[in-house]
């Protein structure tokens, strides 16, 4: 991959400057190839985002469109609502735990698999297969495994566990500090959703980490070993720093996936009691298409988009720039 870009970079200065500026049918074709896609994405992505933004500032909160300006009213309505405040708490808690768990589990699995083991492909396939399944399947299946009256609780009961967890039906928030209209803390019900989400997505972290580990030269690993460094010392002072870029990539991609999470919640718990498992994506869907509050739904969608763009835009710019320099 790298060699090709290098070749690319080298071949440009070879050409005389005058020749580069000349009109070429080939270059024209290259641009022309991209134009249909650019028009489609211009309309369906950028145009529609603009349209949604416009709706979010309108008074369209019934079945009949009403584009009279409402200023920031829809935004102030959602930010002061119990449900959206709950969503923000949930999405922050969920994303933080989801990322940490996926990083730890993914790195651990990748390290195990990288030990030149037998049947490597077999193990890798098992840890990765949930990625090939729909989030709604995961939601339906795990809602049964973690159903408080059966599933995992049967096993815990067999081990003599006294107070069985109520999983996604739990109404506990810990530590439960009052803030605005809601209680700040970790909704215990989210733990059940987290287990399902980590089961599904940790394989992604594993695969990316494995690619990263394979990129570290054996000499570096060998040098550390001869040096007499212990396993842990070697891991923290040599392997982990080498994986910094890989970790950033995983964090960004999983953050984007986590903030968007929809199917899993929809199929597994829905908004939950007191909106303890609700998310902005689900709130937007129900507000818009079941509540017919189009302008408020649009406002939620735009807030969600901004949350994701904060992570994605700098990441894309940096990555693409690196690609150009290579």
């Amino acid at each position, binding site marked *: 991959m790298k060699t090709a870009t290098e070749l690319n970079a080298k071949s440009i200065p070879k050409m005389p400057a005058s020749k580069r500026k000349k009109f070429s049918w080939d270059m024209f074709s290259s641009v022309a190839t991209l134009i249909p*896609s650019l028009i489609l994405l211009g309309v*369906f992505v950028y145009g529609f985002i603009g349209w949604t933004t416009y709706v979010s500032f309108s008074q369209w909160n019934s079945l009949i469109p009403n584009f009279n300006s409402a200023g920031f009213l829809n935004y102030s309505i959602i930010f002061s609502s119990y449900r959206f405040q709950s969503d923000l708490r949930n999405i922050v808690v969920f994303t933080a735990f989801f990322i940490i768990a996926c990083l730890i589990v993914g790195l651990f699995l990748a390290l195990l698999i990288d030990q030149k083991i037998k049947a490597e492909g077999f193990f890798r396939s098992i840890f990765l297969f949930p990625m*090939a399944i729909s989030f709604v399947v995961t939601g*339906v299946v795990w809602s049964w495994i973690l159903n408080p009256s059966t599933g995992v609780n049967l096993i815990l009961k067999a081990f003599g566990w006294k107070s069985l967890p109520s999983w996604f039906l739990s109404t506990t928030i810990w530590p439960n500090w009052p803030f605005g209209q809601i209680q700040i803390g970790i909704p215990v019900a989210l733990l059940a959703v987290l287990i399902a989400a980590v089961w599904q997505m940790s394989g992604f972290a594993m695969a*990316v980490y494995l690619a990263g580990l394979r990129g570290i030269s054996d000499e570096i690993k060998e040098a550390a070993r001869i040096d007499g460094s212990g396993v842990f010392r070697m891991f923290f002072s040599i392997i982990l720093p080498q994986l910094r870029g890989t970790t950033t990539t995983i964090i960004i991609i999983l953050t984007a996936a986590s903030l968007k999470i929809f199917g899993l919640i929809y199929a597994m718990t829905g908004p939950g009691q007191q909106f303890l498992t609700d998310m902005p994506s689900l709130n937007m*869907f129900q507000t818009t298409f079941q509540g017919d509050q189009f302008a408020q739904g649009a406002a939620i969608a735009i807030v969600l988009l901004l949350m994701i763009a904060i992570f994605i835009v700098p990441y894309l710019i940096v990555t*693409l720039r690196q690609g150009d320099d290579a």
Partner: protein
Amino acid sequence: MNTLALRRVSRTLLYVVLILLAALYLVPVYVVVVTSLKSNASVSLAQMWNFPNVFSFSSIASAWAQLGPNFINSFELAIPATLISSLIGALNGYALSKWRFKGSSVVYFFILFGMFIPYQSVLIPLLKVLDVIGLYNTIAGLILVHVVYGIPIATLIFRNYYTSIPLEMIEAGKIDGTGYWGIFRYIILPLSVSGFVVAGIWQFTQIWNNFLFAVSLTNPPDQPVTVALVNIAGSQTVQWNVQMASALLVSVPTLLVYILLGKFFVRGLLAGSVKG
């Protein structure tokens, strides 16, 4: 001698941990398969983990009776949408990797951003536009939607793939007097088979598994399987064995693809992490 023994112990421990973790990841598979093979009469909350006494295919038959038509919808959606978006991706990837012009990285950014947006931010206009052009609540409408929003990832996969084709091959084509389209047709396309496999598998999986567009843009009976599954699971009257059998059926096509062509699936997965 000691180091050798220590090594043997640590190797054994390594495999024990791996096997335990693998078993843990397969728990949902066990639950789904075992439950799907129980009949209505023998499914009970208390015996969830038990192996079925008698294998019964009645749950799977009952799930199929409900999901069958939606299966056809999903195939009618996923196959054309996968083919079209892969083809567009190949054309874009070729232009962006082999004929870079001033501003092509800006264009690339413009395309890629669409991959990360939460689709809620385009859903209201999308619904209205599909309604106006008569494609709301149709499979054709969903195909259009998945083709358009599949352009970024398909472009990314092919751009990365074509970057690994040496530029000399293009130069050789130019010397022979072959132009942009000739080089694509006679040099690039014959080398693209595994690129199409990677993009095709990725797109098929994503489109088959998609729920948000499906639930927002279609009503029964035109819904894909994912929506049908959620409807079955959400209904109070459907037993757990039928729910699990439905979950199993919905996963069969993508799992088959994964088992048969897993190597290419992983390449699509890694491409999704946008490496320059």
